[in-house]
């Protein structure tokens, strides 16, 4: 992408994420009552993040073994309640070590 294209993409992304964050807080002063809308918005983050994580983690890690290992270690640590930072680091270290072996 050209430099101009990259700046345009940054501006578009900034405007959309600004609107998403600011509009409800500015406009809504009453509670959302529609159950479907509430449920839909409740499930969105999990589906989006899961879809973006797998199988992309395998491509990022370089090999299938490193990707699966990073996913497994990160998943288990997160399951055990480790925070965002330790899980991220553990996944990286796992991918690196398995990458060295493989």
């Amino acid at each position: 992408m050209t430099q101009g294209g990259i700046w345009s993409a940054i501006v578009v992304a900034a405007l959309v994420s600004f609107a998403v964050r600011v509009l409800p807080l500015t406009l809504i002063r009453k509670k959302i009552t529609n159950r479907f809308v509430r449920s839909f918005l409740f499930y969105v983050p999990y589906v989006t993040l899961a879809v973006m994580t797998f199988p992309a983690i395998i491509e990022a890690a370089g090999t299938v073994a490193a990707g699966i290992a990073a996913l497994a270690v990160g998943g288990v640590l997160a399951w055990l309640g480790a925070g965002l930072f330790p899980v991220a680091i553990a996944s990286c270290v796992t991918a690196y070590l398995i990458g060295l072996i493989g």
Partner: protein
Amino acid sequence: MNHGVERKKLILWGLRDGFPIGMGYFAVAFSLGITARNAGLNPLQGFVASFLNHASAGEYALYSQIAAGAALWEIAAVIFIANMRYLLMSASLSQKIRPETPILKRMGAGFCITDEIFALGIAAPGWTPVTYLGSAFLLAAVMWSGGTATGIAAGNILPENVVSALSVAIYGMFLAIIVPPARKNRIIAGLVAVSFLLSFLTSRLEWLSTLSEGTRVIILTVSLSGAAALLFPVRDEETEGEGAA
């Protein structure tokens, strides 16, 4: 209490809570910077993009879209989907901001929303002071943006296998967001498993893999979340301040 003194207290409170968040942000943003570098961004662009978007999933989507040479409307749609959870958080936080707060201050509070800052806002006792949120956010966001810029700059001097390993950090962070609620809620656990499976299949099936990455994410997110909302509507209290925060 003197107004200036109270303001100073709120700012210090925000800085204290914002700093540990910023530490985690720096490391994750560093790995995001590597993705941004691969998409062709320079450190300044990374800093600006990170400061304005300040969302891991959203920025990851942005850099992937730039790398794929996506159209602007496609980028807008993907950012909207990736950041959709902020609609819910913003709506939820609207109940915690003093009703007589001026509109510009309300907009400022909205701009501050990230998964972690939202959690601070919900956890604050009583009405959430916008000054407190703003101060926590500014410190954390500067560390986040600095991390991205550093990742773009330093990604160049690191060996390829280290860069590859670091780029996994962002997925580790996504796991840390989705797995703990999945442990507590069987429907979320099932939904995550189905999402993994369908994401894998749609990226492998030849006739589906011609879709762009962003379109694939949008279609899967809307259809799976919609199906889950129809099949397993949540009770009101479940959506209160839980989400991905």
